[in-house]
């Protein structure tokens, strides 16, 4: 189902036809955690081979929306979504859709690097084993580590524990692990917030290289990072009018336009630093 055109927003579809450059179409009407309405009215496209960034103040639901895109919110008891998320022409929240299958095509990297307590090789090969990959695992592992710009640093210590690497290396290991099975979409939830500036820059460079092969969506607190890295940006803000904090999408568009010529008042205020 194509999402409605919103005036002044990035047009997703015209004439009811689905735009092929849109990989995922997110149409969240209402999102509940238990009886708390966490997010409302967030409709945005995630475009192929582009980096889409979600920015906004703390608690505005950016990570919640990101987690909706690969059904990670299902793990929270009491989660309920009204709306749909389209991927490959299907609603991933449809009744017959298996969330585990969804996550095999839409991978995720988390804020805290979380390599498993096993060797570097086994970490990267984990997804391959889950999918019963019968080919040359070693070659795939090497390819993933090279794509994650980590191969040169770990090629002599593939059998050492993943936890023996530095923070930036661990995060790149998590990225290698996520891309080893070549998912279509890669979701990154504040991937650099636990890292030092040097490691942050290396991951940002990595994202720009990965853009050619994957579709990327990231959540970030760092406005400069969003400006440096993303092609499209969505700004979310908190609505406290009904007594509780409910996040919603204020503005979505090209990153250049959002950062230099924001149209909504909240966006302008946020970018000027009047609230955070």
């Amino acid at each position, binding site marked *: 189902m194509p999402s409605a055109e919103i005036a002044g927003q990035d047009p997703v579809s015209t004439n009811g036809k689905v735009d092929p450059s849109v990989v995922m179409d997110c149409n969240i009407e209402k999102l509940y955690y238990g009886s708390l309405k966490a997010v409302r009215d967030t409709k945005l496209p995630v475009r192929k081979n582009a980096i889409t960034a979600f920015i906004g103040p703390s608690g505005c639901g950016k990570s919640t929306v990101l987690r909706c895109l690969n059904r990670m919110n299902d793990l929270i008891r009491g989660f309920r979504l009204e709306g749909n998320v389209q991927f490959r022409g299907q609603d991933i929240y449809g009744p017959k859709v298996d969330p585990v299958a969804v996550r*095999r095509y839409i991978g995720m990297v988390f804020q805290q690097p979380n390599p498993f307590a096993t060797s570097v090789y086994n970490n990267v090969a*984990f*997804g391959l084993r*889950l999918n019963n990959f019968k080919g040359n695992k070693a070659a795939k592992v090497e390819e993933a580590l090279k794509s994650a710009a980590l191969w040169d640093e770990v090629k002599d210590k593939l059998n050492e524990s993943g936890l023996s690497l530095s923070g930036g290396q661990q995060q790149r290991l998590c990225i290698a692990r996520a891309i080893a099975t070549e998912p279509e979409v890669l979701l990154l939830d504040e991937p650099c917030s636990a890292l030092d500036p040097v490691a942050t820059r290396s991951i940002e460079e990595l994202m720009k290289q990965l853009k050619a092969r994957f579709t990327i969506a990231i959540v970030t607190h760092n406005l400069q990072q969003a400006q440096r890295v993303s092609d499209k940006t969505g700004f979310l803000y908190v609505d406290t009018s009904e007594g509780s904090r409910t996040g919603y999408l204020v503005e979505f568009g090209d990153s250049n336009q959002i950062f230099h010529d924001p149209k909504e008042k909240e966006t302008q205020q946020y970018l000027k630093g009047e609230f955070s």
Partner: protein
Amino acid sequence: MPTEAQKSKPPSRTQAITDTAFRALCQGFTWLVAVIAVIIVLKIVLAALPAVRQYGLGFLSGQVWDPNKKAYSILPEIWGTLYSSVLALIFGTAFGVAAALFLAEGFTADAVFALLKTVNLQFHPFWGKLPEQVENLLSNLIELLAAIPSVVYGLWGLFVIIPLIRPACHWLHADLGWIPIFGTDLSGPGMLPAVIVLSIMILPTITAIARGSLLAVPTRLRMAAYGLGATRWEAIFAVTLPTASRGIFGGIVLAFGRALGETMALAMLVGNANVISASLLSPANTLAALLANAFPEANPKDVGVLMYAATVLLPAAVPRILTGVMLAIARGAGETAPLLFTALFSNYWLLWHGHVKLMQPTASLAVLIYNFAGMPFANQVELAWAAALVLVAMVLTANLIGQSLASRRVQ
């Protein structure tokens, strides 16, 4: 303007002295415990030395135990201890780890949540807390299993388990008797009832420790597994269990130590026959049961032999000693063997004609249960059950109080 009283001051002389004194007291108690343990071990080894000189290593490889002929050897007991402990460990680990997984992964909570969903009460302020409450209740119930005194397990095994498995065992021996493990017929107490009860006794230890280890696996590792598209069970077997494996293994070792040293339940259930047999249905003997049965009537000269046997059993005590203090009080009420050897038994109270007599034999519920359980008269057995009820009530009350105090959250 700040007054003198509001400025920070270095510790006063009284505070410094109290600090040093407290630290010294703690050190003293720690050394005391260590010294007591060393004294126990030394005394046993020293008392065993004459028997070691007399019987040598043949004590460990022979199969005859005959006080009349002065022929002593404990190979059947070593076999019985290892066979019963290893089998109990296998069953106890299988069920214990499964129960721990069940509790740690939240399956119960999910089931209760689904149930509440059918009546739309899942977000109710009171009923919504039910999933977590049910899980805590289940976990506490399993821990209560550990509080039941060993002698009560023996009693239950004698009068409930053995009659229950008798028909099945007869069938097993009759039809499948050619398989060595069913080679003999069940004649009451034997290896199988002992193994069944022993598995139940070590299950709470394994479950509690395994559950703790599983809960300690950081959530972010599980999230990573799910994020890569793992199903629930793939995440459990590929990530959660391996990460928790060290803790679970520690729990298994602890449970093994308990199984090796278990005295009262096995003394009542294992049959006290000095035979080595692969058959599960045959009576056997364990080191601990041998000591429990032989000591009360032992000739002072034969005590050395029993000490030799005790030395063989000592290494099994190591894990228990290391955790002993935690379980001290509740166990104290239910402990039978130490009382059997020290307080012996007497139907008379500590007070005699108004004088407190601490040095005389005295009564205890646990020893009464042990004595009466083995008697052939029905009303004695009934009295044993009654005493067991009183003892279990006392022990469970202590445990419940302990659990509720321990679970009070720090605000």
